[in-house]
């Protein structure tokens, strides 16, 4: 049973007066990630927007054990902490959570993550995907969507983003999920479920970013939900290789309602301003193909 917002525990490990941008998607999600783990956790955090929540020494804004690490190393640091906790007889005390952005996960961080997944290390990895290197000022990442203007793709990114959850599925780990910061109860549920599974658990979380995507901060939730209604962001789980859509994506697949056209979503953010109709049509085709694939997997037409 999916948790309703009203039933989310009234706790907060994320403290106000932090340095994140107004309307930051990470903050909304982090409150539920830490709540789902009841604060019984240690996080490894690379250089990234998330680091901002750690504050500047000697004061931090997050009330859980947290270890800052070098940029490429999030998954290796989590592997090390997990090994160290086992070696010192403390493995049961806390969940090890590696949490990095799309760059720290899918670009510079992918080697360490792939190695950890192949070894099925025992920790939870959560990628908050704000679709660019935001902490350094919005340079393109391997997960930046096609057409998006960034400071290294001024004319719009040519390539479609990598499918990181699919890459993680290929490692044969016990749990892979896709969620969105715009659905904090879904984030809560997936983290809570992952908490109880042994081995490498990977959660990919689309994270709207008003500063980098170019929209009014009040729209963080609205646009995150719109992306799901387009089929650009898909909510799903893969448990022991079995795929199923979840939440709003399930409803979208089952009601037969037409998805919102991609153009409507792209029009809401200044990073897509200047995209030509031809480019938009290509993105629509790409989204349609992917969506059909997800629906087919959900219906059990292929094993994954």
């Amino acid at each position, binding site marked *: 049973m999916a948790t309703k917002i009203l039933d989310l525990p009234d706790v907060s490990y994320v403290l*106000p007066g932090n340095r994140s941008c*107004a309307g930051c998607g990470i903050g909304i999600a982090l409150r539920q990630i830490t709540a789902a783990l009841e604060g019984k956790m240690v996080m490894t955090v690379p250089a990234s927007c998330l680091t901002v929540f750690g504050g500047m020494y000697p004061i931090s*804004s997050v009330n859980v054990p947290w270890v800052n690490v070098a940029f490429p190393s999030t998954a290796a640091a989590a592997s090390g902490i997990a090994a160290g906790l086992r070696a010192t007889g403390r493995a049961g005390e806390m969940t090890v959570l590696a949490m990095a952005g799309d760059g720290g996960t899918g670009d510079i961080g992918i080697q360490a993550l792939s190695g950890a997944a192949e070894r099925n290390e025992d920790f939870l990895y959560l990628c908050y995907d704000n679709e660019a290197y935001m902490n350094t000022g919005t340079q393109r990442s391997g997960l930046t969507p096609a057409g998006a203007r960034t400071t290294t793709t001024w004319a719009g990114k040519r390539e479609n983003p990598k499918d990181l959850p699919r890459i993680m599925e290929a490692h044969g780990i016990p749990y892979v999920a896709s969620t969105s910061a715009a659905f904090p109860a879904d984030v809560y549920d997936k983290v809570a479920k992952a908490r109880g599974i042994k081995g490498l658990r990977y959660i990919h979380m689309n994270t709207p970013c008003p500063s980098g995507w170019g929209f009014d901060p009040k729209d*963080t939730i609205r646009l995150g939900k719109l992306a799901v209604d387009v089929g650009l962001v898909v909510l799903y789980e893969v448990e022991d290789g079995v795929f199923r859509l979840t939440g709003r994506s399930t409803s979208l697949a089952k009601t037969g309602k037409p998805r919102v056209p991609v153009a409507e979503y792209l029009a809401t953010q200044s990073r897509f301003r200047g995209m030509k109709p031809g480019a938009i049509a290509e993105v629509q085709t790409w989204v349609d193909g992917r969506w059909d694939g997800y629906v087919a997997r959900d219906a059990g037409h292929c094993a994954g």
Partner: protein
Amino acid sequence: MSEISMSRPAVGEAGRTGEWRNSRPVVDPAKCLAVKQGKVTCQICWAYCPDGCVAQGVGPVIDLTYCKGCGICAEECPAKAIEMQPEALHGVCAIDAGGEVAR
């Protein structure tokens, strides 16, 4: 002095982030679902605040010392009970030494 950097958590690491905003959320108790029903209900503003500045309640209480004025609560309130009002309406800088809360 410590040999390593190891911080402790505290509210307000970045100072009074309420000073960042141009407009502030104001809850209209007449429209708020929790107030109308007399019990904790909905709490969507509480869930969606990136900074945890909304305390659950009948109705919810917003901490204006730290509220950055992002406007998500106002945008998402299903009863349209929260309005973003310009800071100028409340004085140029309405944060005093004791902080301020709005009901």
